[in-house]
């Protein structure tokens, strides 16, 4: 095993060690300034294309829904929002500032009355993926939608909408109602 020792500025040293391998192997460093990460590097040192952004939001109150009307769900409580990309006060939308592919999940709990219940993840104002759920008189009523969505990191945004054919319905707060997203791959 061979190694190169680099003396520290004031004390100590860093050893670059080559394992026992057959043949010739090459490590090429990029021609740019940066930081070499190791398996124990803190998450804060990771590039944004790997570590973020992600958010999770829920509700702290019920929300009434008009019959047969797609209604934006006001997920007004942030459980986390690592990059301050989720608006939980005005537009209830996630506008990530890092381009890439995001895993997005949404679920809403309605009152338990027989009927059709749907939820939809909207991208840039239009339905991107919709989930439908028919609840019997004794069944639950929690439609959920899941999608992998490309976001351009500047203008693209997502929102959560709910829909029901039942009159005088509400979306409940609680653990069955949530909206979250996380970057799974950079652009």
């Amino acid at each position, binding site marked *: 095993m061979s190694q190169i020792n680099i003396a520290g500025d004031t004390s100590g040293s860093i050893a670059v060690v080559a394992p026992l391998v057959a043949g010739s192997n090459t490590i090429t460093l990029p021609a740019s300034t940066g930081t070499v990460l190791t398996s124990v590097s803190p998450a804060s040192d990771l590039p944004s294309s790997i570590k973020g952004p992600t958010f999770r939001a829920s509700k702290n109150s019920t*929300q009434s829904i*008009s*019959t*047969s*009307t*797609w*209604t*934006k*769900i*006001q997920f007004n409580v942030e459980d986390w929002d690592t990059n301050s990309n989720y608006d939980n006060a005005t*537009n*209830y939308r996630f506008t990530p500032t890092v381009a890439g592919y995001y895993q997005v999940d949404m679920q809403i709990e309605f009152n338990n009355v027989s009927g*059709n219940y*749907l939820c939809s993840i909207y991208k840039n104002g239009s*339905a991107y993926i*919709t989930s*439908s759920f028919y609840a019997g008189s004794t069944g639950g009523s929690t439609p959920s939608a899941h999608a992998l969505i490309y976001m351009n990191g500047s203008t693209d945004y997502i929102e959560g*909408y709910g*829909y029901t*054919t039942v009159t005088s319905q509400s979306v409940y707060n609680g653990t069955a109602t949530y909206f979250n997203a996380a970057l799974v791959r950079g652009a």
Partner: protein
Amino acid sequence: MNLYEKLIALYPSLTDEDFHPTRGTITLQNDSDGKGDYIAKWEHPTLPKPTDEQLGAA
């Protein structure tokens, strides 16, 4: 009376299929911005999109 109920009152011939959430010819929407329910899409093959005056009178 919400927008859906006004449309049913104005056009009693409308059916659930017209308002189908994914393939209906009429889409109602509420963006939770304080502006209330509105007609986001009206592609009904025979009935004209109602005016604000008609909806107000419904």
